[in-house]
C-alpha cells in the first residue's frame, strides 16, 4: 500500500478510461466513421468543382468534427454514473478537478485524436494544398481539446436525464461557435494565402482558458447531478 498522490490518481483515471475504451472499441470507431462519412458526403454531393470544394472545406471538416465530438461526449460520464463509479470518483482523496481532467484527457485521446489524424486525408478530397492541410491539422489539434473540455460541462449537466443526447447538443453547440469560427478561419486564411497565425493564437488562448475553467465547472456540475 503506498500513499496516494495526485499524479498517481490521475494516471489511474487515464489508464482506466483508455482500457475501457479499448474494450469498447466499436464506440470509438463509430465516432471516427461518422466524421469520415459526414465530411465525405459533401464532395460527393457537390461534384468535382474544385474551387467551390476548396472554399467550403474548412467549414465542412470543422462542423463534422464538432458533430462527431458531440456523439462521443454523451458517453464520458454516463456509464460511470450508472454503475456508481462516479460516486466513488467524487469521494477520492484528491480534488475532483483532477478526476475530470483525467477523464477529459482520456476522452480526447480516444475520440478526438483519431479525427485530428485523419482530417488531412479528408482535406485531400477537397483539393486542399499541402500547407493548408498542415494548418487544418494544427487547428484541429489545438481546437479539439477545447471541444472536449467545454463538452464535458454539458455531459455533466445532462447526466441521468432522458433525451440527454439532444439536450447536450443544444447546450454545447452554441459554446462551440468561437472554436468553429477561429478553427475554420485559420484554414480559410491559409487557403487565401494569408497567415493563419492570428487565428491559431486565439485558439490557443481559448484552450488555456477552458483548461483552467472547464474542469472546475464540470466538477461543480457533477456534484449537482449526483446529489
Amino acid at each position: 500500500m503506498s500513499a496516494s498522490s495526485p499524479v498517481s490518481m490521475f494516471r489511474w483515471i487515464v489508464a482506466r478510461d483508455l482500457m475501457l475504451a479499448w474494450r469498447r472499441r466499436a464506440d470509438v470507431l463509430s465516432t471516427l466513421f461518422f466524421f469520415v462519412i459526414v465530411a465525405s458526403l459533401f464532395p460527393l454531393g457537390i461534384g468535382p468543382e474544385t474551387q467551390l470544394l476548396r472554399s467550403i472545406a474548412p467549414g465542412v471538416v470543422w462542423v463534422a468534427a464538432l458533430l462527431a465530438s458531440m456523439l462521443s461526449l454523451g458517453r464520458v460520464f454516463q456509464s460511470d454514473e450508472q454503475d456508481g463509479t462516479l460516486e466513488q470518483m467524487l469521494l477520492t482523496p484528491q480534488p475532483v478537478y483532477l478526476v475530470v481532467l483525467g477523464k477529459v484527457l482520456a476522452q480526447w485521446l480516444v475520440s478526438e485524436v483519431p479525427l485530428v489524424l485523419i482530417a488531412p486525408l479528408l482535406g485531400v478530397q477537397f483539393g486542399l494544398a499541402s500547407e493548408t492541410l498542415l494548418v487544418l491539422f494544427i487547428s484541429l489539434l489545438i481546437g479539439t481539446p477545447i471541444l472536449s473540455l467545454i463538452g464535458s460541462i454539458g455531459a455533466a449537466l445532462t447526466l441521468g436525464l432522458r433525451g440527454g443526447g439532444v439536450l447536450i447538443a443544444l447546450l454545447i453547440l452554441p459554446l462551440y461557435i468561437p472554436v468553429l469560427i477561429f478553427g475554420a478561419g485559420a484554414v480559410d486564411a491559409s487557403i487565401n494565402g494569408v497567415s493563419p497565425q492570428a487565428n491559431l493564437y486565439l485558439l490557443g488562448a481559448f484552450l488555456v482558458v477552458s483548461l483552467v475553467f472547464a474542469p472546475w465547472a464540470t466538477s461543480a456540475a457533477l456534484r449537482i447531478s449526483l446529489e
Partner: protein
Amino acid sequence: MSFSLTPGMLLQITGPNGSGKTSLLRIICGLTTPESGEIKWHGAEIRSLAEEYSRSIIYIGHRIAVKEELNSLENLRISSGLAGCELSRDQAQQALARVGLSGRENLPARFLSEGQRRRSALARLINCSATLWILDEVLASLDHAAVTLVESLISEHLSKGGMAIVATHQEIHISAGSFHRLELEPPVSRGTASPGSPS
C-alpha cells in the same frame, strides 16, 4: 436526529423502505448536502475538510462501482488506486482470494453472478486504510458464507479501532467492538419526509 460514533463502534441503520437510509448514508459521505443539520468529523464540518475527510472513509453503495468490462483484479486495483491506496498485484490477488474469488480474477465482471460482483466490491475493504466504513445494503444477495465474511471483516476493523455504519435489515453479529442500532421512522405520507439531520 443526532448521533456520534466512537472508535470500535458499529452503527446499524434500519428502517422501512423509503425511510431514508440511503439518503442518510449519502449525506454522511458528503455526496448529498443536507437540508439542515451538519456532519462533523473530529469536530470539523466535513465540507470544510473535503479531501481529508474522503481519505478517512470508504463507501460501498447500492451501485457497487464494479465495471462490467473489467475483470475482478482490474476492478479492485483501479478502485483502490482511485481511493488512494494502491495495491500490488499480489495484494489484490490475496484480497480476492479472501472474498472467495480466487480462480475467477481474470473473468470480466459481466460473467460474474450478482453475489460474486458484490464480493469483488467487498474486496476493497481489505487492505483499506479508511477509518470509517459506510456500507449500504452490503449484505443484499450475499450467501451465508459471504455474510459471515462481511461480519468478520467488520469485526476485525472494529477491533483495530475503526468505525462502521451499515444500512441493512439483516442481523449483523460482530465479535468485537460495540453495536448500536438506529431505527429510522417510516416516511410521512404528507410528503414532507426530509432527510435526516444528524450532527
